[in-house]
């Protein structure tokens, strides 16, 4: 029964990302085109506009830099294909969570949801909102950094606004998302086209001897891959909508095979555009690469770049609201979080408690001084869970032979991606060991304490708190467990 209710929820939420939004009741409405749009829209964040330099800084030459971007795209495609197999085999929402549950049992799944819900997702929501407000306020403080209070006030306003919109109406949330995704694609296209025009006019100076000065150390290549793959983060997004895809067994792999290379193409072409007007050094030293590009190419219309980048950032923030909401919901349903978090608003049909919870945690994160470093140190955890999930795919090939696998990737792909993830987890720790990684691991493991206290042992007093809490929150927010029409 929850499965169907889950589907209903999916329909509610799916439309947030759906480019062609229809009504919340339609099922299987996402075609191949929408699938591709979702992939492209989610993966391309604001990073490619502001600092697409992490790859270049490790390679120091234009040619290898573009090769790394392409290779990362291929690797992301492989990873997404593994997730396609998982998604069609275990048709549950919540990203890695159900796969981990299926492959390894509740503890890794719990730790995943614990880490994601309390650190990774809300802090990245907070970071995106902070960078949005930094971006918006920067023009008013030319020459210096905007005061912290301005950035934080605006970020808090953005978080509150986004969660209000998403808690009020799925339709509104999806509308916002569609507008901002469209804005993002507009600026991507503008940059690519103007770059191509410049290239056609003969601005190829920076592509001559493009392999000169390449640093070919293993460490540098590894770090370049590490940073490059981050730009493709979000390649597993389509798993959240597997069920809504029309004919998923055809469209899911097709969307991945078309979508991610399309992103790769955008990334490479945008880099090419940048290189037509900037040398490698200039690109590395630009504070906002797309803005520099706009100033040099689009003047006097250069203001469109910061405007659209701001749109793109706020759109990305809105998008994270969607996936995180789902994860809270699933974890709540499994009893790994307060159950009330999985409830749905009666009148508005939105996962309001999950979104509000997410927003509150994010606001808490913007209050202290600097959370960038926190996020950096926790980034290895994301790859840890990707790797674990894909390793789970290999494990299940042996332990769960009976499960139907409409899509079955060749076994070497998950093995390759697992090894890659291991590398990506270990690379930053080995190259720059820091105590903070240990603290991150300790934090993740500290989730076990709660697991054993509340989930495993189920102390009575915990329920004495949680039951009335749930009840009152239910009535306060008018939320109920997800319902569904009888099948």
């Amino acid at each position, binding site marked *: 029964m*929850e499965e169907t209710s889950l589907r209903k929820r999916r329909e509610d939420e799916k439309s947030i990302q759906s480019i062609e939004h229809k009504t919340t009741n339609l099922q299987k409405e996402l075609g191949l085109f929408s699938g591709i749009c979702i992939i492209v829209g989610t993966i391309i964040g604001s990073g490619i506009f502001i600092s697409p330099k992490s790859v270049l800084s490790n390679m120091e030459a234009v040619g290898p830099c573009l090769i790394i971007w392409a290779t990362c795209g291929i690797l992301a495609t492989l990873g997404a294909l593994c997730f396609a197999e998982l998604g069609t085999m*275990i048709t549950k929402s919540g990203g890695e969570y159900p796969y981990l549950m299926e492959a390894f049992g509740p503890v890794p799944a719990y730790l995943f949801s614990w880490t994601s819900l309390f650190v990774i997702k809300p802090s990245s929501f907070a970071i995106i909102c902070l960078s949005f407000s930094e971006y918006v306020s920067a023009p*008013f*403080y*030319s020459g210096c950094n905007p005061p912290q209070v301005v950035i934080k006030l605006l970020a808090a306003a953005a978080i509150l606004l986004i969660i209000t919109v998403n808690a009020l109406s799925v339709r509104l949330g999806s509308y916002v998302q569609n507008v901002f995704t469209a804005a993002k694609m507009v600026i991507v296209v503008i940059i690519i086209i103007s770059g191509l025009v410049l290239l056609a006019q003969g601005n190829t100076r920076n592509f001559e001897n493009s392999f000169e000065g390449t640093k070919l150390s293993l460490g540098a290549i590894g770090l370049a891959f590490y940073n490059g793959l981050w730009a493709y983060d979000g390649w597993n997004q389509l798993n959240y909508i597997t069920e809504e895809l029309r004919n998923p067994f055809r469209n899911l792999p097709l969307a991945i095979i078309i979508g991610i290379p399309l992103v790769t193409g955008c990334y490479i072409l945008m880099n090419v555009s940048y290189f037509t007007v900037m040398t490698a050094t200039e690109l590395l030293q630009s504070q906002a690469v797309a803005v520099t590009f706009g100033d040099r190419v689009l003047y006097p219309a250069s203001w469109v770049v910061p405007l659209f980048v701001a749109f793109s950032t706020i759109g990305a923030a809105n998008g994270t609201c969607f996936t995180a909401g789902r994860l809270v919901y699933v974890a*709540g349903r499994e009893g790994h979080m307060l159950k009330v978090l999985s409830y749905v608003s009666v009148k508005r049909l939105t996962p309001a408690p999950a979104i509000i919870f997410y927003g509150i945690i994010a606001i808490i994160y913007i209050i202290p001084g600097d959370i960038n470093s926190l996020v950096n140190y926790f980034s290895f955890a994301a790859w840890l869970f990707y790797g674990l999930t894909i390793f789970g795919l290999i494990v299940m090939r042996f332990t769960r032979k009976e499960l139907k696998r409409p899509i079955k990737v060749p076994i070497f792909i998950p093995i390759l991606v697992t090894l890659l993830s291991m590398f990506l987890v270990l690379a930053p720790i080995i190259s720059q060991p820091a105590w903070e990684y240990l603290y991150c691991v300790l934090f993740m493991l500290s989730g076990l304490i709660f697991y054993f206290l509340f989930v495993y042992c189920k102390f009575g007093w915990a329920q004495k708190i949680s039951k009335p809490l749930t009840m009152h929150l*239910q009535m306060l*927010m008018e939320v*109920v467990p997800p319902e569904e029409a009888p099948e």
Partner: protein
Amino acid sequence: MAEDKGKRDSIGMSMKGGRTNNGFVQNEDILETDPDPGSPEDSPQHNAVDIFGPAEPDLKDVRPYAGMPKEVLFRFSGQARYRVPREALFWLTVASVLVLIVATIGIVAISPKCLDWWQAGPMYRIYPRSFKDSDKDGNGDLKGIQDKLDYITTLNIKTVWITSFYKSSLKDFRHGVEDFREIDPIFGTMKNFENLVAAIHDKGLKLIIDFIPNHTSDKHAWFQWSRNRTGKYTDYYIWHDCTRENGKTIPPNNWLSVYGNSSWHFDEVRNQCYFHQFMKEQPDLNFRNPDVQEEIKEIIQFWLSKGVDGFSFDAVQFLLEAKHLRDEAQVNKTQMPDTVTHYSELYHDFTTTQVGMHDIVRSFRQTMDRYSREPGRYRFMGTEAHGENIAKTMMYYGLPFIQEADFPFNSYLGKLDVPSGNSVFEVITSWMENMPEGKWPNWMTGGPDNDRLTSRLGKQYVNIMNMLVFTLPGTPITYYGEEIGMRNILATNLNETYDVDTLLSKSPMQWDNSSNAGFSEGNHTWLPTSSDYHTVNVDVQKTQPRSALKLYQELSLLHANELLLSRGWFCYLRNDNHSVVYTRELDGIDRVFVMVLNFGELSLLNLKEMISNIPTRVRIRLSTNSAYKGREIDTHAITLDKGEGLILEYNTRNLLHHQTAFQDRCFVSNRACYSSVLNILYSLC
């Protein structure tokens, strides 16, 4: 629990969600679903409540419970005790979004213009031939500067200023440029320069370079084409017919070159005289020719697109000369015209600061503005005007609506030969009082054309001069080596034939005790190192707690961290032959810095007389004598040694610039107040 777990494992995730739940929340379900007729909250709903709920009409005696469906919920959620907080919370959220946005806009609106990079920290002026030699040829080079950037960052420098490094044949490597787009081979290659720019930017520093648009070398290709009357280059220089009698040139007028004798030189190739403000090897460009202005603009663009963050435009007052070529007036009317050969013997009304000169400088500014649009890439413009009076110097700040230089470099402290409170005071006030409102001051203690502090004022005045420039409002500018108190080299046995006097303050930077003071690993250096380098060098002073270098670093750090010093009001209290006393204060900060600097002999000061509300005892924040740091001092009687300076700090809410008695003695460039609650500056105060 094990049972539970086993169940889940066997059922798997594909089973109905309700069954796979475990954990404390699941218990709610179990309780709800426990068949316990006594409790109203389970039996009717049971596990199937979601499915059969609507069909169950028997909801009359239910009470709310965790996990209730909407039929139950709606019976209670409409109660005022839930509805009111719900709506209140909703509107509270909406209101807080609005409040947050309005607050943000408000703060942005009242924020003062923030300090740009050229205002935020000190500049460090490097004579590249003497800073660090990386290739053992005895001459400093760009790669050497790059190697020493770490040292520069330890000084808390914000801007590196490298004096002229263009391809040049003159031994001084400053003024006779052969190619404005080339690096002189002695300093390295263009690749070295690009690397240096990248390295400087990587460290968060900025780079400004010298540019002397007035003239070129006579080896410059333009001059060669011009003397042959080639195309548009014919009028690139200032040519005029002149007559020659018995091998002696009779110049068109009495104008003199800065280095003496006629500023006209006969060129045998073109059979005309050309004009040179400086040496005859440095013919003046004809800035009345639009082609020349265009060339210079392109050169400016060339360096800006290389990533240079700004220029120091040198000798701009010489850009234009009067077209009528009339004789300039003699200072001493009775002197025989034939004997007038020294530059100082004429009034230069027709050869300096001509009408239109500022328009040219402003056109440079406009060129630079086009490169300033990128965020964080404002391009700085400074001008060097030699020997001009203060009013003419201030003209470079531009007019209220026409931007020109960000500041003309203030070299008056560098010209101070005799230290005294009055003379220092005069330099400070003449700048502050003449500077147009809202503009930004700057203070240079020396430069390649001045004697070093140690040689000019004396060793005991090095620290106090550094303290002075770091505590005055504006950008402090330090010539390399002044932070460790280097001195001039002696004029004897210099191998160079160029004007020896200008070389004395350009000796190699003293890095450590090794040979050539660590400047070069070569066998010789282009200028001898100063003989005191064993005691006066970076390496030694880094470890000495009371060294000039340590104090410089502390001052620089204080300057970077204290809003009082970067944005505060400057109020001067008093000066006499010995000492200068001034304060720095800012509305919203209840601390005040009082600087007490003694440029004269041992003297006694009573601060209590000057500031009525000063406490009897105040803290010493920094002192040229580091033993005093952190101590307290009695404000009735402050004894100051020769060259001793103190930065005193005390708490007060009664700031001097509010007091009518001091109002005309206080200056601030951009008025701002500080809010400690929000940690912001605001301009509405």
